[in-house]
């Protein structure tokens, strides 16, 4: 026989002003099972909780109903109080007399009081079916995986490693560094981007706690927090990186030059290459599409007639440690991790959708990121900004903001956040490179909301003499060797035409190619723009709805370097909170199968969003079986189970039916 204690809260006057609490107490006193009723001005206060503990001990209560506010507010509080008095915390239920009653029926005290009585009755009816539950311990693999080696991923890996935990950093490209490595300078301090990034990249390579897997991609993820099983494909580099010393002879001597992806095709690289001089690791990979020897091998294998391509193999002949490994193949490794940080970063928006700007058609229309490569001392022009069309230095440069941003029709609805500032930066840096440069910046709203950003933006105008024109440009067209930019200065309300030497498009920030695939592997969601979705936009900005998976950097939303670093560190902190534990406490509210009733229909397997249900053979019959580590307790399985053999602890059929059966009686 259960002994239910009912504790009624006045919540100051929040409840008692509307609900006649003593009348509720009288009405529920004689409900079946109720052996104790108490009222308190604030049940959640320490005296209130003490009253609960005392009643449990003194009156031998086996169930506790607290009728106060929303369980989303104080369920944990009262469960803890019960546990302190030795009662299993899952034997506590709440009746929501405040949010669902007194606050919404303030104009009808009688109705509110009657409803309050029913709400308590409902909780009492339900609670006799509550069972003591014990959370299952989840073992924790104390190793983290970071996906993406840009600044956010680097920061996350370094922070996790600094706390003494093992971390594996997986990067798709042959070097880490990401977008930041492509930048010349960073706003608002004008730090040289590689000068501040390279030390961190080197630290990643040297930290004994970090396993760096470049030229590698995550292929599949299974398991759950504490023990994710991740398959990683290490693509063949055709270079034995153990033997290779990174001397550089191969990429210097390789005769096959192709457009450099790192320089956004504004420069060339060899077909055995490192993307840029400060690459980490400083070990080359062979580009199997362009390498002459690979082409030769393919020609031989095809048995085709005609002129054979050259065998080449110059790199192999010149390599001092004989590190070329033509037979190397992709390698798949499976490793186990306790937590995962996703830092897949961003790509620039493709401006070719705007035919009116002629990107891809007029060589002197370039993107902001391409300008970074032209400004960079290690870029294709060694830091001399020259027009791609004729190699002359541009004197009039026009910047176009919001290329793909703030355009619901042909681009993205959102603001890309970094463009206003990098346009200001470009104006300043261009002026430093060549005092004769005049910059014009077409902006819609100049968004300078970070620390020192507004001041920086002023600098672009006052010191670098950039002319800001408020308006979006309609068209760019060539005329007399220049590019005519047609805009409006909407502040004066006149059309503006500028004959420019170069036009720079501030292309929007979009999620990196393949980020959505990573999201699907990890069972995390992405929005309509394919940015990954955080658990709560304000209060849980780096967590996801999948336990143990965290987000860092621009995969969540466009952000600049400082924000990427913050998000990287934040994701690391969340990861460390997990890795600091030997085991995790899981929620016990998971599904459970009554093997005797299970018909083996396996409908539950189909609906389970977490693949937590499998089958097992019990006494010669195939029945469903739940992996409690994977189960989140949604109850989809129990809703489809015809023989009612599978139920979710804490939301059982009996509990819910008892609630229904208590209504209007």
């Amino acid at each position: 026989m259960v002994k239910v204690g009912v504790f009624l809260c006045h919540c100051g006057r929040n409840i008692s002003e509307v609900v006649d609490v003593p009348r509720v107490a009288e009405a529920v006193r004689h409900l079946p099972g109720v052996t104790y009723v108490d009222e308190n001005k604030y049940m959640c206060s320490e005296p209130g909780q003490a009253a609960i503990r005392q009643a449990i001990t003194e009156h031998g209560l086996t169930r506790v109903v607290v009728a106060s506010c929303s369980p989303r507010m104080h369920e944990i509080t009262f469960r803890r109080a019960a546990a302190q008095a030795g009662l299993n915390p899952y034997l506590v239920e709440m009746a929501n007399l405040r949010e669902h009653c007194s606050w919404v029926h303030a104009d009808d005290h009688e109705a509110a009081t009657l409803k309050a009585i029913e709400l308590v009755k409902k909780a009492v009816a339900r609670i006799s079916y509550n069972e003591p539950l014990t959370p299952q311990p989840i073992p924790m693999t104390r190793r983290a995986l970071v996906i993406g080696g840009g600044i956010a991923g680097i920061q996350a890996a370094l922070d996790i490693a600094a706390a003494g935990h093992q971390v594996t950093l997986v990067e798709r490209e042959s070097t880490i560094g990401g977008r930041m490595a492509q930048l010349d300078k960073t706003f608002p301090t004008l730090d040289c981007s590689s000068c501040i990034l390279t030390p961190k990249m080197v630290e990643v390579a040297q930290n004994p706690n970090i396993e760096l897997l470049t030229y590698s991609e995550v292929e599949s993820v299974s398991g759950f927090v504490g023990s994710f099983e991740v398959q990683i494909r290490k693509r063949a580099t055709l270079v034995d990186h153990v033997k290779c010393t990174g001397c550089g002879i191969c990429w210097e001597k390789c005769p096959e030059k192709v457009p450099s992806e790192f320089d956004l095709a504004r420069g060339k690289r060899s077909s055995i290459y490192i993307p840029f001089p400060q690459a980490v690791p400083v070990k080359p990979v062979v580009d199997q599409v362009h390498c002459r020897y690979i082409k030769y091998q393919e020609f031989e294998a095809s048995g085709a007639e005609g002129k054979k391509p050259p065998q080449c193999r110059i790199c192999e002949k010149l390599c001092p440690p004989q590190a070329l490994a033509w037979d190397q193949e992709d390698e798949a490794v499976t490793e186990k991790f306790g937590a995962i940080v996703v830092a897949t970063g961003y790509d620039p928006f493709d401006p070719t959708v705007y035919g009116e700007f002629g990107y891809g058609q007029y060589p002197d229309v370039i993107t902001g990121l391409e300008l970074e490569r032209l400004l960079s001392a290690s870029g294709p022009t060694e830091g001399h900004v020259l027009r791609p069309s004729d190699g002359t230095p541009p004197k009039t440069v026009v910047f176009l903001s919001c290329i793909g941003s703030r355009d619901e029709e042909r681009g993205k609805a959102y603001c890309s956040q970094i463009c206003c500032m990098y346009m200001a930066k470009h104006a300043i840096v261009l002026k430093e490179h060549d005092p004769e440069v005049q910059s014009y910046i077409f902006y819609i709203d100049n968004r300078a909301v970070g620390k020192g950003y507004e001041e920086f933006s002023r600098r672009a105008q006052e010191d670098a003499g950039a002319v800001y024109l408020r308006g979006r440009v309609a068209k760019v067209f060539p005329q007399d060797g220049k590019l005519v930019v047609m805009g409006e200065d909407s502040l004066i309300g006149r059309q503006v035409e500028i004959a420019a030497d170069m036009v720079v498009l501030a292309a929007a920030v979009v999620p990196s190619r393949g980020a959505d695939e990573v999201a699907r592997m990890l069972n995390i969601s992405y929005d309509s723009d394919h940015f990954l979705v955080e658990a709560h936009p304000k209060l849980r900005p780096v967590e996801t709805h999948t336990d143990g998976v965290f987000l860092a950097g621009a995969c969540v939303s466009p952000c600049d370097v400082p924000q990427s670093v913050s998000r990287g560190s934040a994701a690391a902190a969340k990861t460390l909170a997990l890795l600091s534990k030997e085991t995790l406490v899981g929620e016990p509210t998971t599904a459970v199968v009554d093997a005797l009733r299970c018909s083996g229909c396996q409908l539950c397997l189909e609906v389970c969003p977490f693949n937590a249900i499998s089958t097992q053979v019990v006494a010669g019959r195939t029945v469903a079986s739940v992996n409690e580590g994977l189960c989140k307790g949604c109850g989809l399985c129990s809703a489809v189970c015809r023989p009612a053999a599978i139920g979710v602890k804490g939301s059982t059929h009996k509990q819910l039916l008892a609630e229904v059966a208590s209504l209007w009686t």
Partner: protein
Amino acid sequence: MTKQVAYFPGCALEGSAREYDVSTRRVFAALGVELLEVPDWVCCGASSTHGRGQEVALALPAHALRAASQMGLPLMSPCAMCYSRFKLASLELAHPEARARTEAALGQDIGELPSVLHPLQVLDEIAPQATVPLDIKVASYYGCLLVRPPAAGFDDQENPTIMDRIVAGWGAQPVSWAFKTECCGAGMALARPDMVARLSRRVLEQARQAGAEVVVVACPMCQANLDLYTGEKDTPVLYITQLIGLALGLSPRELMLGRHLINPLPLLRAKGLVNHG
């Protein structure tokens, strides 16, 4: 296999743009497309119904759509303005309310809405049968109404290619240029000739800078504005049907090439596209 369309020449093609009408009829006849003129057709209203409310704007195009519907044929007008009015009207008349009001104004049922075509769409489907090689650099000028508004246009709004594809198919060399879809001044020739002159001159200048020897158009307003409001020494402006006519071996007289103010004949002779006349 003869294809038939309901043919709506439009007011301009009866007057200043008769060469467009004549060359269209000849070229389509040569290509096996039969043009059945809409009987007793009435003006589409052009841009003059803008700002006169939906009923006035829809009534005139609806009249033509109804006629084509009765003929059971798609409605084709070489005039970009007529085409655009018909296309937009057919979209608006898909709404039952607009249709009911318009039918009340017309005093007649419109019937099943016909599809609306421009000759470019038909030409794009027909394999070229050039007999005379068109060794000439062509700027395809689309103007506004073939590509905009977005609902009525049938190609990219900023860089359409259908006409370039057609002229290339007939052997000419399209040039890439930036003013393919910039407005020529449209129907402002009487009220604001200054606007037309300014806009048309810029279009022709851009075509010239892009290396075009001739500009081809598919709209009588574009032709008139570029031809009449620039200079007689400027780049000649031909209808696409005139250019295709040349490739088919039709004579300048048959194509009425003598009617343009910017005389194209010296160039066409120099290029060997015209042997006589």
